[in-house]
């Protein structure tokens, strides 16, 4: 297959993006190549069923159960699959742990790789040029955009997702959460804290 074809068929579709999608969907549907009901099902899955609540469950469990945490950090894919979290864009999962000495942060500079079964579809900023360009070179300034400031003594390790490995950050458990249940802990785990651009909420 040619890698550079100077003829770009996409320009034949309407330029307005909403109309461009509609036109392509219509053409494919008329030829029987896509089923509109399947599209609705895909959208429902990522809008309502798969999202950061999955990752938050994993994090809360790791905070409570030392054996689970150990297994998760050693080889996360089968461990999260046991909880039902496996599938498209999450076939190979690695969990990386934050400590007082080390803060992890995840980016995909080349496209938008993200652990879908654990976090759902990435937010707009994760896919933005600014995040993709800056996260590897100036992670601390990017963290400042999120209102996060780390001590100088904490190293920042940025994971650029260049292959099919998908990374999830295990944030540090907030202080004063000793008596909380797994469910209460999961409610403190934000999406951004599992990408490494935020910290978990502190109980009020």
């Amino acid at each position, binding site marked *: *297959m*040619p*890698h*550079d*074809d100077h003829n*770009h*068929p*996409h320009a*034949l579709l309407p330029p307005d*993006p*909403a109309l461009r*999608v509609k*036109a*392509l*969907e219509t*053409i*494919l549907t008329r*030829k*029987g*190549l*896509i*089923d509109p009901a*399947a*599209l609705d*099902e*895909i*959208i429902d*899955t*990522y*809008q309502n069923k798969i999202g950061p609540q999955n990752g938050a469950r994993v994090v809360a469990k790791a905070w409570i159960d030392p054996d689970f945490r150990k297994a998760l950090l050693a080889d996360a894919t089968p461990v999260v699959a046991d909880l039902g979290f496996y599938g*498209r864009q*999450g*076939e190979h999962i*690695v969990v990386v742990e934050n400590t007082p000495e080390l803060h992890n942060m995840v*980016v995909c*500079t*080349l*496209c938008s790789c993200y652990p879908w*079964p654990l976090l759902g*579809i990435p937010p*707009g*900023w994760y896919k*933005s*040029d*600014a*995040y*993709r360009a800056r996260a*590897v*070179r100036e992670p601390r300034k990017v963290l400042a*955009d*999120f209102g996060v400031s780390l001590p100088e003594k904490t190293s*920042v*390790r940025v994971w*650029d997702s*260049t*292959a099919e*490995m998908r990374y999830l950050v295990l944030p540090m458990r907030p202080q004063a959460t000793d008596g909380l249940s797994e469910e209460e802990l999961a409610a403190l785990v934000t*999406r*951004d804290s599992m990408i490494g651009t*935020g910290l978990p909420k502190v109980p009020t």
Partner: protein
Amino acid sequence: MTRVHDMGGRFGDGPVYPESDDVPIFAEDWHARALAVTVAADSLGQWNIDVKRHARERLPPKDYARFSYYEKWVSALADLLVETGVLTEKDLRGQAGNDTHPLASRALKAEAVAGVLASGGPADRPSDIHARFKVGQTVRTVDPAANRLVDGGHTRLPVYASGATGKVMRLHGTHVLPDSNAHGLGEAPEPLYAVVFPASELWADPENPKDEVVLDLWQSYLEPV
């Protein structure tokens, strides 16, 4: 040596704008449709993930820069559908008939969606290629960063990390090589490593001397030091 998508380390992009957790995941209805059409079209079986990524990367730089995220997806999908012969340019112009397509039997059905999304497409494969590097070993990335099989082809070594010296952190097993798989040259699985680089190895003026960047890199992207 590179394409417009390879933007890691670039200057001039301005701030990142965070979003709270309750912002809808699809800002517009058409974003959701674009994602769903793209996911559903994979079931036609005419390409793999590397071919699809490369289709987005080789959008003309002017288009890549001005298109929003899902505009890139749907435009690259239209290009792929024509390149693979699934659709014709006449189809895209809206001038073709609506006869049922020979590939229609492969169309993703609503009842199959859950199973397809849950099974995914793992990229690890058995390989005869022996792991050349050990955890802890010092390695250098090839320079320049480029596909060595197809000029201007797909690769997953970003330019900012070419010619850089780092240490092997993990061996992930043997995985499909995108540089080959994106061009119909076979899956060519080989060892894949996580390699850690000090920020000072990558940037003229790192923010903090203790900071690091980790990349997942195939064995053929690496040389012993």
